[in-house]
């Protein structure tokens, strides 16, 4: 099981790097958890009922406080679930940026590719917890809405970055 070996090796490297907040590697190590991801901004299905995922379930497996969680396949920053928020909620006193960028991540439970928006929570400075960088579906900056090197707090009252949520916006209908 070469794949699994690599998976766990990368996971533990990740843990080592993020438990030491100062370790810049947390910004820099990329992680591939499972499957591939599509870089292109796909049409978003908004018909399903909005619902915030707060805890793992059979259909949404994994630990939202871990960089390995499937939705974080293209996150770059601090995980709001470690900062007083959740996977889909900003921490108290921060403002969600409505302008954001979009990634595509595969859910290992159903094998589907989901459109994920990585909204930044803004108006307090760097949370500093659970730094996580994964560039699975990232594009260069000339495609800004597929780029995670931008501080997306530009859509908030103050463009000061605190952390990032990962919100399901629909299924990639390819």
């Amino acid at each position: 099981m070469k794949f699994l070996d690599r998976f766990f090796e990368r996971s533990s490297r990740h843990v080592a790097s993020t438990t030491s907040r100062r370790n810049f590697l947390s910004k820099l190590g990329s992680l591939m958890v499972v499957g591939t991801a599509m870089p292109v901004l796909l049409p978003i299905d908004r018909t399903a009922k909005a619902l915030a995922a707060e805890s793992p379930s059979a259909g949404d497996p994994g630990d939202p406080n871990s960089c390995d969680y499937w939705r974080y396949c293209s996150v770059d920053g601090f995980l709001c679930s470690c900062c007083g928020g959740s996977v889909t909620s900003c921490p108290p006193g921060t403002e969600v940026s409505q302008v954001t960028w979009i990634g595509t991540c595969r859910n290992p439970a159903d094998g589907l590719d989901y459109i994920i928006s990585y909204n930044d929570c803004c108006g307090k400075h760097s949370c500093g917890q659970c730094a996580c960088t994964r560039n699975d579906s990232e594009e260069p900056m000339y495609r800004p809405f597929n780029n995670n090197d931008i501080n997306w707090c530009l859509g908030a009252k103050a463009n000061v970055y605190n952390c990032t949520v990962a919100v399901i916006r629909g299924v990639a209908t390819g």
Partner: protein
Amino acid sequence: MPLSKFAAGLLALGSALIPPSLYAALPTETVGQAELPFPPSPHRSYLIDFEFDNMVATRVVVVDPDRQKVLGMLSTGGAAPAVLAHDQKTVYTADIFFSRYVRGTRTDVLTAWDTRTLSPSWEVEIPAKRASTLTEKYALSMSGDDRFVYVYNFTPSQTITVVDTQARKVASEVNINGCILAYPIGDRRFASLCGSGDLQVTTLDDNGKVSDRTTSKFFDPEQEKLVERAIHLGDTFYFVTTEGVIHGVDFSGAKPRILPTWSLTTEQEKKDGWAPGGWQLMAIAPRLNRLYVLMHPDHERHKWEDPSTIIWAFDLKTHKKVGTLEAPNLIWSLNATNDDAPLLLGTNIEGGLETFDLKTGKHLHTMEGVSKTPTLILNH
């Protein structure tokens, strides 16, 4: 939505390492906004983070030590001190802002934060004199009825800015030259500790102006060094000397009543080199009526601010040592919670939080890396 549609979409992506799922596709979501419950859990802790490697944009980290979870943070200016109102609704910070962060126009403000939303409720500009020191407890304090906030100023002239939280404006600036800090007493008084060894007590009227002032002899600074970072239970304050002698003062009467001193160490322990040391080196758990002190086994005079892994517990009534707690990491500052099942909290020198259950004396866990340079812990 029919499952076949998703399967089709999946096939269209040209990759099917994982077979189509038996679950329905996850629904779309919206972004939420976390709020904290009120009243706060009695264990909620506020870690004042000096951010020593920056000291301009600084923070207070709010933590639930039971669940080992960060609840959020306050962004403060210039290593602001913080104080919790007794009604548990508000945290105050005394911030310094510069228009160009390290230069330009200075603006000092008292910021009132809502403990539920961790957002600023209001702010008031205060004289640009706030003391800039390693954060300590009585550099920012408040009256027992939450009406007035006391801000310690050092320019190096020493004054206290009295802020009226009801009128949301500065009520007065009180000269305390030669003395430091504002140890709050009751609703309208605060004490300051003087270089002469005196205690100065200032009484305010309901407008926040000085109505009375007394000075009492407290200790002899030529004979001993009293750590100014005291701890209080009601109107009684406990100071410790660098050699481990407790000086208590009961401020509840008209004049301060100096309590008999007592030693943390026996003669033998003292000979063995035991003495207190640390930053906020003492804590009190009121429901247990116990005092906790960071202790060194290898005392030397220059170690009085050094961290330690060892904490001694004392009964405040009998002054007897009743236990020893030991942390896996060096602790610099302590605080205890005020409830019936109290925790002792300590900031370790790596920025982590050590938690002890005070009923059992057991070290429960370390929350690693929860802050950068935590100088102080506050609890409701």
